[in-house]
């Protein structure tokens, strides 16, 4: 993201954490899900861009940031190293779109839904409350997460900007 010095870009199948005044962004979420966590007291934010729901179902699973289950564990650990307290963490999520209008019986073609379902399940298991989401539909999303106040900005083509 050009022009913003404190903006950290999180790639696909990647994650990162930062303290205030840092900002995390990830570009063009499609079927992937952007998982934003923040600790409002310590002002620590973490963002993961996950591609697939479950590392255990897959042979090639060495990249922990690729899967909802392993990415969340890694992201929380990274945020704790920056001073975040797990008990204060809150979550916001975006993405999980179905980019093509398939009449999908093939489960791989509805990977967006499954990414969202898995993310919610794992957040629940970890005891992290999901306080806002913008998921599904059929368009891509770029998101920004502000460590200062946990503001989660969502941009989509032709739809303006929404703040969660």
């Amino acid at each position, binding site marked *: 993201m050009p022009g913003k010095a404190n903006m950290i870009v999180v790639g*696909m199948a990647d994650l990162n954490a930062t303290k205030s005044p840092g900002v995390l962004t990830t*570009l*063009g*979420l499609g079927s992937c899900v952007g998982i934003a966590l923040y600790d409002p007291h310590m002002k620590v934010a973490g963002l993961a861009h996950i*591609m*697939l729901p479950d590392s255990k179902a897959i*042979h090639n699973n060495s990249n922990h940031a690729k899967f909802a289950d392993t990415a969340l564990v890694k992201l929380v650990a990274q945020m704790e190293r920056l001073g975040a307290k797990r008990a204060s963490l809150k979550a916001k999520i975006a993405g999980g779109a179905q980019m093509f209008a398939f009449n999908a019986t093939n489960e791989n073609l509805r*990977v967006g839904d499954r990414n969202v379902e898995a993310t919610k399940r794992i957040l629940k298991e970890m005891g992290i409350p999901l306080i806002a989401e913008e998921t599904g539909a059929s*368009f*891509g999303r770029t998101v920004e997460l502000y460590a200062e106040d946990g503001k989660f900005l969502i941009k989509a083509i032709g739809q303006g900007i929404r703040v969660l």
Partner: protein
Amino acid sequence: MAKTSAENIFSDDHLDILKEIGSMGTAHAATALSTMVNKKVTMPVPNVSWTDFHNIANFVGGPENIIVGILVSLSGNIQGMMMHLMELDAAHNIAELIIGTPPPKDKLNFGVMERSVIEEVGNIMLSSYLGSLAGLTNSQIKPSIPYMSVDMANAILSVPASEFGRMADKMLFIESQISIENVKFSGCFVLVPNLHSFYRILRALGVE
């Protein structure tokens, strides 16, 4: 035998074979397209590479650039998906060249005719490549009808990437160029077989 890693599996020799498939495929596609639009169509031999996902997004103008993706899902002996990617302007210009209507002011909008033409061009290119691949691997490949999406490159590429993400962070990337009446249009394909089909293709190429 150790499971082959999907990360660095294709040698230059294998890519040459895949390029040869591409070459036959584009020859078929040029003929088919030329017949459809009744204009002179040429396509150079495509570049084929085993490319990191991020490089593909950059090839079509970066992760947030708006592109047109035409996707077919594959069934039969080779399953997975294949996608044709074009930049927004290229898609409008191809449609204009073929049906003669100028592009709309709002480039994000595609009229019914425009959409149909662009889907069909993508479909012809995809089917031609898949026909060659089926021949080489002695497989039956049944492509679905084409589906079109207009959005940010990353969002569109996330669909094949999550399919291929089960194995590797790379895709088979085929750079394509079409000239219609000497006007050049650049685009690319990505081929994303599922794991089983991936090994079938490798075996056919003599890789174990």
